[in-house]
């Protein structure tokens, strides 16, 4: 599995997103531009300029028309993917840590930071997937997190719930229409923040990544913890692969906690676990800093990881990956065939 190294950022990566077709990769970093790349060869399609601070998050609509990004300059921006033009800017009192489109890209949510007397909140905006259209200024909904601030959030299937991960290690389920808190469960170690949430393809379950060195697979409907993946290092990101039943976890000792620079010590590896059996299957090395973000190709052909070292590494899976099956899985496959 020979990776393509994307060296377009000058600072630590913050998020990587594949588009729906899996042919484009969008990456954000603490330097102030978003990069778009061709997934198959790593050629850069272009960059999006305009943000005045570190960019924390990015998302692309399913038709690969518009791009949303959230930044430390307290704005959410909407971009025309094709031209690189900034279509709209929403301003907030604090930094935006996460943005996500719902399944049909009619709505966009943003998670704002708790700072300077402002409580952390989740805001919902109406969007139109049209580069010509006038975007609405007003927030449709604001959910204020007064208990523990939300670090990440996302839309469930049917845009029915908003699921948020919190700094205290709990997850919440909100009614996406009214903003009412339906459930809040502590699923990770207390006060070990949840730092990433990524969805399964149909958005019925998601994976959380926490600093408590575990990732958990949770159902969106009743917040039941389905699976737990135990790592030996604090995690920064986790993703679910399509086609094959794996999850990929990324993390590593934070730079300030590493006493030695040896790559072995920092555990800067992407770890593959079997989604259903919770066993660790393998690791992919390469980064020489913690992995800040991992993303799986929605078509199941590869994955990309972004590190504190400023590199994006895009991997295409090879035959061994597709052939790997547990005995019981093969048994089942044969039965169905």
């Amino acid at each position, binding site marked *: 599995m020979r990776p393509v190294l994307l060296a377009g950022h000058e600072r630590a990566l913050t998020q990587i997103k594949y588009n*729906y077709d899996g042919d484009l990769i969008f990456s954000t970093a603490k330097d102030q531009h978003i990069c778009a790349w061709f997934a198959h*060869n790593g050629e850069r399609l272009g960059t999006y300029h305009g943000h005045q601070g570190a960019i924390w998050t990015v998302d692309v609509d*399913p*038709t690969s*028309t518009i791009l949303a990004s959230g930044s430390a300059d307290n704005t959410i921006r909407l971009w025309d993917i094709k031209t690189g033009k900034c279509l709209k800017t929403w301003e907030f009192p604090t930094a935006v840590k996460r943005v996500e489109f719902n*399944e*049909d*890209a009619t709505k966009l949510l943003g998670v704002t930071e708790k700072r300077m007397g402002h409580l952390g909140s989740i805001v919902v905006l109406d969007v139109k*997937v049209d580069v010509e259209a006038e975007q609405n200024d007003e927030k449709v909904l604001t959910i204020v997190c007064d208990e523990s601030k939300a670090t990440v959030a996302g839309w469930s*299937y*049917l845009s*029915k719930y908003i699921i948020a991960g919190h700094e205290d290690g709990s997850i919440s389920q909100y009614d996406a229409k009214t903003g009412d808190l339906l459930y809040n469960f502590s699923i990770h170690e207390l006060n070990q923040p949840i730092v990433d949430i990524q969805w399964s393809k*149909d958005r*019925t*379950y998601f994976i959380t990544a926490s600093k408590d060195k575990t990732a958990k697979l949770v*159902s969106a*409907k009743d917040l039941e913890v*389905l699976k737990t993946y135990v790592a*030996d290092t604090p995690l920064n990101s986790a993703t679910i692969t399509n086609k094959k039943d794996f999850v990929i976890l990324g993390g590593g000792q934070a730079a300030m906690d590493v*006493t*030695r620079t040896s790559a*072995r*010590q920092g555990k800067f590896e992407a770890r593959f676990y079997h989604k*259903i*059996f919770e066993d660790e299957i393998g690791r992919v090395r390469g980064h020489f800093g913690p992995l800040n973000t991992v993303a799986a190709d929605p078509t199941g052909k590869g994955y990309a990881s972004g590190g504190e070292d400023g590199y994006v590494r895009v991997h295409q899976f090879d035959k061994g990956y597709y052939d790997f099956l*547990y*005995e*019981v*899985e093969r*048994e*089942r496959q044969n039965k169905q065939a």
Partner: protein
Amino acid sequence: MAPSFENLRDEDLDEDDFDVDDVDISDLKEKYEVQLEQGYDTFVVIDGLPKVTEEQKGKLVKFLLKKLKTVGNTREDLIYMPMGDDGKSMSFAFVEYSSAAEAAAAVRQLDLVPLDKKHTLRVNKMTDVDRYGREGRIDDEYTPPKIEPFQEQEHLRSFLADPSGRGRDQFVLYRGETVGVYWNSEKDQPEPVVERQHWTEAFVQWSPLGTYLTSVHAQGVQLWGGPSWSRQRRFPHPFVNLIAFAPNERYLVTWSSRPIAIPEEGHPALSLDDDGKNYVIWDIDTGKPIRSFAQIDQPVQLDEQGVKKPQKFPWPAFKWSADAKYVARLNQGNSISVYELPKMNLLDKTAIKIEGVMDFEWAPATPQRDSIKTYEQLFCFWTPEIGSNPAKVGLMSIPSKEIVRSLNLFSVTDAKLHWQSDAAYLCVKVDRHSKSKKSQATTLEIFRVKEKGVPVEVVDTIKDTVINFAWEPKGDRFVIITTTEPVGPTAVAPKTSVAFFCPEKAKGNTIGNFKHLRTLDKKNSNAIFWSPKGRFVVIATIHNQQSSDLDFFDLDFEGEKPESDKDLTANLQLMNTADHYGVTDVEWDPSGRFVATWASSWKQQMENGYHVYDFKGEQLREEPLEKLKQLLWRPRPPTLLSKEEQKTIRKNLREYSRVFEQEDADRVNSADVAVVEQRRRILEEWNAWRAVTEEEVAEERDIMGLPMDPVEELIRIKTEQLALDDTEEKVIEEIMEEVLEETEEIVN
């Protein structure tokens, strides 16, 4: 309203009339009143004296005084012997000592001492007589003490019978706040025996034969054992820091850096005599203290800057002889005090004076010396050069106090004493300096204790510093680690060499001279761990940030032997090398089958956890455990089989192993089947859950009138738009360049 000058009342004027006695100061009085009763602490009551008349009284008092003065200071006029109505004494007397400590000593040492054939002294503290003997406290009628009915005790050695019939060993894990005991199940998850939260506050420790698990708390020490892990004993030594067992598990030494302070209301186990003491020797069977000791102050040592070095308290301070009949303590530079168990009285009532004595060590087994019929305990000690007298290593036999062997040495900077486990050999590692004190060298002086006259053999002068030495248990080979670099805390681990030594082949039953077998250079190793059964040894690098090698050696390799070693009694073979990052501790299990290595969070924070290897160095298990502090194998008592029985087993090992191998194979198979079954179940559960969820979502979509695939529709619209926007087709070309072959030709 405050009184003003115009309307002063009489009461306000006559300040002088103020009556001091009216002020209620009873609370202050109570607080600060000098407690006079405390003066009675210096008094003792002596009972059991003969009845004497006034004339005989003086004689008795004088006679008594002689005895009383052996423990403290008192005078004739401080003895008060009341006379009865009949003109005779009432067979008791009050005596005042000059201090409470002396009075306490009198009670301890004079009680039950015979005065003559008919009379035995009974000495009690005045305060005790008052406390226990006050009216109403004692029933006039005698009631026999109630004897508790016998209660069946738990079998404390039940752990030796592994319920699975595999003879597994147990180990204790202390991690976070949890203490758990587990069966070692080789490759599989260890099987829990017991697990408790907050079982200990400081650390855990096994007793030397594995009977008890010790937990250490601020209030004292507790012993646990039996199949239900119930509390067996308590030893309430407040703020205890360290503990040490006697080898036979009958006694326990506890030490606290804080002197014991007995509160006024008393202490459940300790008495006023123990006040100010640091060490307590306990009898484990009764749970009672036998004797307590204060710390011996070490002479103050100054470092290079002239600052006082913190005092070092050597541990164990009390060292036990192999049969636990004696326990001894070193008073560095002066003497060794040997105490006799079970009464803990000083052997022959005096400490053994050895001028300059630096260290001593008991033989770990009762030595069997050639042509010596009485088996006595033995310890060795060494003294440095004092004036023109040479340094000396001595072997002393106890209780006869006879010097069995002594050896003079010159130019000694330091010496370390290493006994072989059967007490067959004693190796004294002597660091010597040249006359100019510039260069260092080490010699190994080996005492052959079992041979007649205890001959001493000198092994090689080693130029480098020897940082570690270890005898093969039950064997006669040893390993040393040397380094050329100065020892001390350095960022980079020093380069070390590991050297193996073994005796030459000799005729008959004798053991040949010790010869150098092999040296392995350019290592970082710093620790030697022999298998408890000998033959196998692990050479490790522990406590090191950069390297953490574990080398597994076999000294009786059954393969080809190099020609150069044909006269030696060993065939060295490196079996395997492993790496356990950050390893801090290594321990063999008592059977010598497994080695556990672990990284303790007490010593470093990274990658805490343990590994288990078999004796060949093959890794069986690894488990990262956050906040792992301790892993300790449960020791086993010595085998009950006789030498002959053991030999028979060894001879028929092949037959036994066939049975066990079959069992192992069966178990692996059944375990595999179980795993597959489990996976099948998990997979089915997952698929069932997916099916239900997918159906539910589809239903909801249907009800809400949403398309089944929300994205498909969006993409269809988009592609239609694109088709409208630009009808002309684009050809995207991508040029790939691939170098198939490259040849370079040099043309002249």
